């Protein structure tokens, strides 16, 4: 938790140190003033609320004293299940997204016609932003109880999708999540393929490597950081998702974000401290993913120099 607080405060600490250093120099200090309005907004709507949230998760509502009871409460089945479900669906759709997205990205990258290539990249650009209620509802239309695909399978293959499968379940939600994960991965991986220089392939070949050896020793290791960046970003992307899940599986599947939502709306009678503890743990999980993402992309940038 200390780490998390530090992480949140990190930019502010750097800022303050820089300002102290420039204390003796009036014009330097003036320059920092230009940064203030923006910083004020961040403090008001981001940092202070989150610091209070972290503080609140350690405070007992009745005694106002320090407690770790809210975190201990996380061991109850209902909360453990929410975390497991959230991590499972984010992990699964991130892995599917990375694998399929990389293959599709490679297919697009190697496509000979520039116009189709650009069209597919634009398509990814658009569809990765389609999410939330409209997307969830589209999946109900195609895979709901009377959905297009459900009927198609029944009429032509005499295969009954329900009740083995349900769009309002884990697997249904996973299908909807993959919808925005896939194009996001395509957008991340295509520049990575573009970054693999022809010279690398040719030098490897002139030194006696065959195609397989090139990918084994050079191609895939170079793609590595991009794949990792994709995996963590997709994970965070799915973990934080709320609207899609709310529309599809509101009460059928317990997810962390849904639980926190219920607590804010006051739909469940829980100690708000428990909600805050869940929120802080989520911040930690997401913060970790984004931090790994940052490190991985820094490496990508360094290599592509």
């Amino acid at each position, binding site marked *: 938790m200390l780490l998390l607080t530090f992480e949140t405060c990190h*930019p502010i600490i*750097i800022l303050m140190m820089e300002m102290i250093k420039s204390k003796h120099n009036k014009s330097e200090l003036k320059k920092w003033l*230009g*940064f203030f309005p*923006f910083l004020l*907004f961040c403090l*008001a709507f*981001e940092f202070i*609320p*989150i610091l209070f*949230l972290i503080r*609140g998760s350690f405070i007992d509502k009745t005694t106002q004293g320090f407690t770790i009871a809210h975190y201990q409460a996380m061991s109850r089945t209902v909360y453990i299940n929410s975390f497991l479900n959230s991590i499972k669906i984010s992990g699964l759709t991130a892995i599917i997204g990375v694998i399929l997205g990389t293959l*599709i990205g490679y*297919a*697009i990258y190697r496509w*000979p016609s520039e116009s189709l290539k650009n069209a*597919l990249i*634009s*398509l*990814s*650009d*658009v569809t*990765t*932003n389609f*999410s*939330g*209620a*409209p997307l969830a509802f*589209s*999946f*109900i*239309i195609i895979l709901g109880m*009377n959905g*297009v695909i459900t*009927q198609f399978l029944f009429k032509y293959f005499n295969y009954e999708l329900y009740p083995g499968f349900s769009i309002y379940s884990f697997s249904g939600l996973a299908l909807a999540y993959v*919808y925005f994960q*896939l194009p*996001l991965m395509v*957008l991340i991986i295509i520049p990575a393929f573009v970054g693999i220089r022809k010279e690398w392939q040719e030098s490897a070949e002139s030194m006696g490597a065959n195609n397989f050896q090139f990918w084994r020793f050079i191609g895939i290791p170079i793609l590595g950081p991009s794949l990792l960046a994709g995996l963590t970003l997709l994970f965070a*992307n799915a973990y*934080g998702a*709320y*609207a899609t899940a*709310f*529309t599809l599986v509101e009460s059928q599947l317990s997810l962390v*974000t849904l639980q*926190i939502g219920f607590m*804010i*709306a006051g739909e469940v009678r829980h100690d*708000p401290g428990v909600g*805050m503890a869940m*929120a802080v743990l*989520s*911040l930690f999980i*997401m*913060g970790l*993913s*984004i931090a790994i*993402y*940052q490190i991985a992309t820094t490496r990508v940038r360094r290599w592509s120099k």
Partner: protein
Amino acid sequence: MKINRKSPTAAQKKNRPQVWQIILIAFFIFYMFLPILSTYIFSIATRWDRTIFPEGFTFEFYKEATDASYFTTSLRNSLILSLSTILVSLIIIIPTVYWVNVRLPKAKSILDILMILPFGIPTVVLALALVQVYNGTPIGRSPVLLIGAVFIYSMPFMYRPISNALHSIDALTLTEAGQSLGASTLQVMLKVIIPNIYPGIISGSLLVFATVFAEFTLTKLILGARFKTFPLLLVEYTRINGNIAAAFSVISFTIAWLASLLILWIGKKGQGSSTQAPHAH
């Protein structure tokens, strides 16, 4: 001596897409289009729950949708929310990014961290934190709080294109050139910098518009029923009337398409790259 080799060389192979490519791309297109296409058809189908193809077509549901109570209110609310967020975002982000680029390069790394942080905060967590802190204050559960929240959530989308545009015009040199001709920093920003980065500004604004117009989580959790926006209405109808919900979805998709196409079009004309930034749903 002449040797003619007609076996396909690497260059020739490149010109023909291979089977695995076609399969993967066909799958991708199918996955991306089927849900959207089905929604468009569903919204104009009289009935489409017993047959493979719709039983008939009608525009009745659009009439019902536009007649629905709250339809205009929710559209208006969504517009108010997105436009005021864009306004706040422009007023705060442009001068800050410009200032940091030209006068305070030291702060560049801090700004970068600040702009990636929102991606690490799930929207529900942001909503919870804001509600906890501001409950009972004058801005608690008010549109002001919502705009603040949505601003934080959408600022990376404004930041990227503007920052890229500023990079590509070499803002520092332009500023020095402007100042050597007697202009103040403010004058340079208004008269030289902004006109030169406006493709970035438009792209950023459109991205924020698309994001905020579809925003559901923060609105629902911070204001709930008090401020019904279009996405809230849509979710409500998915539980009341599927056909009308489909019509709403189509409107929502269409707005998103239009915004994205405009961004792509501007991106092709100018040099501001579009999304590429991570986002939360």
